[in-house]
């Protein structure tokens, strides 16, 4: 752990959907690395898909980052979905109850479709 720096890559898709792809470990250091970037996206986009396909781990502070992003989107009248969570990440999302308050879909395609 600690060797992989968290990455955030932003891609504008069709129909006003923004894909934010995260890569790495969304632990406390990873969350700190992408927190401001996600806040900026949440404040300026109306349809946001967080692609977690390449996220290998998520913990408390990572969940907090995701929730703050979703809360900002909701406050601004936007929509957000999480896509592609690996089984271990998906388990943290479900155990914590995040899956009850966010749209979580298995694939990027399904998440993008849910934004339209």
């Amino acid at each position, binding site marked *: 752990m600690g060797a992989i720096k968290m990455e955030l890559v932003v891609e504008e898709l069709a129909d006003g959907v923004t894909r934010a792809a995260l890569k790495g470990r969304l632990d406390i250091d990873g969350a700190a690395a992408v927190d401001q970037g996600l806040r900026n996206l949440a404040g300026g986009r109306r349809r946001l898909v967080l692609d977690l396909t390449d996220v290998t781990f998520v913990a408390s502070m990572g969940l907090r980052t995701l929730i703050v992003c979703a809360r900002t989107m909701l406050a601004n009248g936007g929509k957000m979905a999480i896509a592609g969570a690996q089984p271990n990440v998906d388990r943290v999302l479900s155990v914590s*109850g995040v899956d009850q308050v966010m749209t979580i879909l298995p694939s990027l395609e399904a998440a993008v479709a849910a934004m339209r």
Partner: protein
Amino acid sequence: VDAWTKVADRLSAIGPVLAWADAAAKDAGLSAERRDALQVCLEEVLANLILHARPRARHKAIGVGVSTDSGAVTLRVADACQSFDPRIAPPVADSGLRSGGRGLRLLAAFASGLDYRSGDDGNELVMTFRDSCP
């Protein structure tokens, strides 16, 4: 306790402690899956202490101990804050998009065992991780 470290009362102190505990767990032969569980729980506990706990006196005096025995890794998280027993504190039933209230669910699901004691000398949360469960 095989090793012990103090934890400063700031979020930036958590990362090095997680790495330290993970190295001990790896040396003990804990599987990658259970090491991730350990990381989830330890980050949750330390973040809660740093962000939310109220010290009884001037300092929170947070410390983490690691011990290993027969493939199990035990973490002891000590503090001098107001007591908070995660085994009996009611989880938030519906916290919506509030960012808090979810940690107890993670601890209960990812630690193989949880114990807690509180006394005049402070609190201690004991979390055990082994490959056989849960």
